[in-house]
Structure formats: C-alpha cells, structure tokens
C-alpha cells in the first residue's frame, strides 16, 4: 500500500502528520513531506486515519 499526496490540493493543514507521524511530516516550511511512501502493514491504520482527517481530500492510499 502506498500514500499518494495530491500536492495541488494539499494546503498544509498538518492534521495527517499528527495522525501518522511515522509516515508524514511537515518540513520547516510547513510543507507536507512523505517519509515512507510504502506503508508498512503495522502503520496501515494510521495511514487510513491520516486520510480521514484531511479536510480537502488531498491524501489517497493505493494498493
């Protein structure tokens, strides 16, 4: 499973980075960085939680 960020939609809220801190991070400029594009099985629930809290649907999970 992979995390896909739609950069045109992402507005840098950061809710997702708090939901999945091992997978996503805000850099010094506050822009979203994907730490691990491939989601390990034990991080799957956090990845899904990250997708849910995005208010602009900028995150997706792909098989």
């Amino acid at each position, binding site marked *: 499973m992979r995390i896909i960020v739609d950069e045109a939609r992402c*507005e*840098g809220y950061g809710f997702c980075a708090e939901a999945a801190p091992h997978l996503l991070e*805000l850099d010094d*400029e506050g822009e979203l960085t994907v730490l691990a594009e491939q989601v390990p099985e034990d991080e799957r629930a*956090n990845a899904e939680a990250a997708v849910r*809290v995005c208010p602009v*649907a900028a995150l997706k999970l792909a098989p």
Partner: protein
Amino acid sequence: MREVVIVGGSIAAVTAADALRQQGHDGPITIVSDERHAPYVRPPLSKGMLKGTESVDSVFMAPLRADLDFRPKTRARGLDLGRRRVLLEGGEELPYDGLVVASGARARRLGPPEAGELVVRDLDDALRLREIFATARSVVIVGGGFLGMEIASTARGLGLDVTVVDRDPPLVRQFGAFLAGHMTRAALAAGVRLVRAPEGVRLAGTPATAVLTGEGAPLEADVIVTAAGDLPNVEWLAGSGVGDPGGLLVDERCRVAPGVVAAGDVVARVADHTGLPRRSPHWGSAIDQARAAAQALLKGDEAPEYRPSPYYWTEQWGLDIKICGRILPGCETHVVTGSMEEGSALLQWTRDGATVAAATVNHRMPVVKLRKLAAAPVPERTTG
C-alpha cells in the same frame, strides 16, 4: 479502560476512535451515530458539493477501521453517569468504562421542526438544497455569517438571484470590519442583494415563501434558506447532571465527568478572560479536541492539556480565506504583503500592541506558518 462508547458520527467521533487506538486502547469501541450515512466531511456541503463541482461520493471519509463497532441510525436519548450507561432510543443500554460525547450541533431554525425549513447542516440537507437550486431562480438566505455567505456565493455561482438578510452587517463579528467589508463588496459586486433587519425576521408560509423583516415589503423567493447558526446537541443529556443549553462544559483536558470526555461542536470551554463558556465549532477544533479527549480518557491527569489554536477557513466570491487566531473587536488590521485590491494578501491583526490573528486571502501558505504569524510581531513598515 475496557469498553469505550462514542456518541456521534462526524469528524470528532471518528478522530477520537482513531486516537484511542493510536494511544494503545485495544478494548471494544462502539460508535453510535443518528445519521443514516457513513461518516462524511462537512466543509464541502456549502461549497463544492452544493454547487455540484464535487461529487457526493467525495464527501465520504475513508472507511472506518475494522476494529470499531459503528452503529448508524442509532440515537442516544439519555446518559446515566452513576451506572455508566448510554441509553439508546428503543430502550437498549450501552455500558461503558469510557465515554466520548461528540454529539455535535444542529442548525438553528426560526420556525417549528415540522415547517420543513431548509438549512445546510448535514449531507441530506445539502443534497436536498442542491436539487432545489438546480431549478430555482431566486433564493433568500437568512443569516450573513460564514455559512450564509458561502451558500449565497454558491447560489450566485449557479445563476440564482440572491438576497441575504441579517440583523447585522455580514461577517463583521467573525472577520472584523476590514475583511468583512472587503467580502461584502465582493458579494455586492457579484450581484447579491444585502438586507439589514435589525429587529430580526419571520418566515411566512409552510414551507416558507417569503421573509418578513418588520419593515418594507416581504422578501419573496423560490427558496428560503435559514443559516442562523447552530445549537449544541445536549438535549439527550437532560437529567444526567451535565450539559447546558450553551454546550457541554469541559475542563482543560476535555473532561466532563469521571470516565466522560467530549469533543467537537457540542463542547463549550471557558477559554478567555471573559470567563464565559463558548464553543468553537470548526473542523480543526473538533480534531484537536478529539485527540486531547482520547488522551485524557486513557491517561487522566497525565494527559497533556488541550491548547486551543483557532483555525478556520472560508471560500466565497472567488476569495479563499484562512485565519489563525481570533479577530477581536477593536483590533487593528495590517496588510503585510499583497493588497486586497490586487486580490491576494497576507493580513495580521493586533490589539494593544500584541498580534492576535493572521489570515491569508488567495495566498497559499502552510497552516503552520500562518499559525506562527498569528502571534508574531507585525513588520514595521506595515504598521500605522
């Protein structure tokens, strides 16, 4: 902590469940929601979803974790704090060790519930209005706040003749005179009619076909929409010992009573020098409170305190506005970069020399940065 029950089915409830699992709670979690739908996001309901530029499917959240018992169409009607039980409509009782109250808010209506008043609060409201807007030619919107003006912008974009009526000038309470003035001019330039009704209004007809303002002719339209604020869903708590008409009061860790926490639009907090409880019914507040509440439920006094950091946004008249902090009465406005005339700007507000809020208008900036600017000194050249 064994059994957790969450009352509510929106972002606060879902985030609380995710946070409980993330914090290591592995006992059963039951979510009871009175909605017939799976959890969805509300922000697009007055914007892209209402206009039709975003599909209905796009508002639904990613499916919930499989290790939750999600029960839609299930309404809580009572709480027994002593026996730790949530009472459901139909008579069932749900025992809990920990309870998260995230029962949200509902649209405030001007008339009785049976009058069929149109509002935009939940998905069914938005779907209904979207269908009506497809054939209507005119709309009167009662309420010139965030929601009312977003609906007005959407309706105008669909080509409807739009009137907004309010006691006060639109948006001043939320945005201050400077920004509200700019947005009002944008609304007028888009062809919207703004009507002041200092004495309040009444709806005529069932369903309503006109708005009576106390002076002047009735405001008639094909559609009347009420966007007059929201009320916290606390009625089900009647007799439990907690919950006031103004909201469910929580402490600095979002706790209500032993084993009970709360998050989202239902929550009221004493947040400032006024000492008055107030709600902060915004997406970001719901998420932050839900995470704080989940930690408090599991860790008690060891949990970090909830530190509110107000953040909210609106889209209307082609203006994309994001705000951190609170624009208090008597604030001074500073245009830090850009200009409102050019259509893109960064703004800061000060009060007694201290920065209290920052906002972007059609100017992309990560929220973390904007949050810092809401407390950072204003660059000197822009003051005065």
